[in-house]
């Protein structure tokens, strides 16, 4: 998996791994939008650059085994990696694909990921990630989930 430097267009290898206790000191709300300590009872993962282990994004997941579904509870790219002037592109896509991989590993053909978007962003999730709407939620499963994973995970 990789991110792209928006200026140089160079690819940088990343990995998504479980967060460590010591990381909470270096992921303040001012940089990662939420107080991530409050998520410590859920599965929290960090997206880091392989070259220097810099944290570029975070995601917390909630597994609903009976529904074969993983909900993306929280997701945040770091402050400098949000908006039009972001330093690295593909952070959110990689984190969504990672949730998809975890869901596929656990639930196989029934795998599904879901999230609740801001109303103004529904069309963004439909267009960029082929997500479908169901009430307030958006979800991805089947061949669309497979396509998302293949787009972000080539290894």
């Amino acid at each position, binding site marked *: 998996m990789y991110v792209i430097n928006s200026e140089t267009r160079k690819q940088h290898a990343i990995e998504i791994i479980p967060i460590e206790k010591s990381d909470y000191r270096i992921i303040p709300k001012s940089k990662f939008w939420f107080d991530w300590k409050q998520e410590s009872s859920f599965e929290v993962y960090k997206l880091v650059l392989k070259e220097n282990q810099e944290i570029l994004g975070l995601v917390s997941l909630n597994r609903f085994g009976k*529904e074969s579904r993983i909900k993306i509870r929280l997701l945040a790219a770091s402050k400098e990696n949000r908006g039009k002037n972001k330093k690295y592109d593909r952070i959110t896509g990689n984190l969504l694909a990672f949730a998809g991989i975890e869901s596929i*590993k656990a639930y196989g053909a029934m795998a599904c990921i879901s*999230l609740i978007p*801001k109303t103004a962003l529904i069309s963004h999730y439909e267009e960029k990630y082929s997500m479908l709407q169901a009430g307030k939620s958006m979800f991805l*499963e089947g061949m669309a989930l497979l396509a998302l994973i293949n787009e972000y995970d080539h290894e």
Partner: protein
Amino acid sequence: MTMNRSGHEIEEFKDLIDSRDQSDQDNSTLARARQNRQRNRPVQETRMLKLMQLKYQMEDYISNGSSSRFSEFLKMYIDTIYTNRKDFATDIDITPMELSHVLHGRREPKPSFLHRLMVHSENAFKNVTTFNTEIWARLYFLDKTLSFLTSSKEAIQNQAKHVKSKSLKV
């Protein structure tokens, strides 16, 4: 001005998701939508998703494996694609008996078996995802390594009397 600020915020929120609040009603709407889709899912799509699952489980095992699972993954692979294991044996030109022995650990797979499995899975995964067929060989030899290390602890102790070696000191 307000429009610009709003547009800027929307761009920012593309990289922020907060799904913490979800009512039971939302959950049931989602469950219904999924049921409707799954009812009409083609068999081939189910197979492709299962192959994807198998790939990631095999990769995880290569990274963290601690027990023998080659034949288990082989069974999962065959049963995802075929309803009858004999058909797989036919497709890779071996006898059902040989396949059965490999699957139950009564016979080691020949190199030709592994090579044919690699060719077969390259085709099977072609339209699903990228798949490094070498993973079958890695799985098989990881199992052999684990089995060697487990069974040889006592043997190593027995052989120690035949070995002379010095500890290097600075």
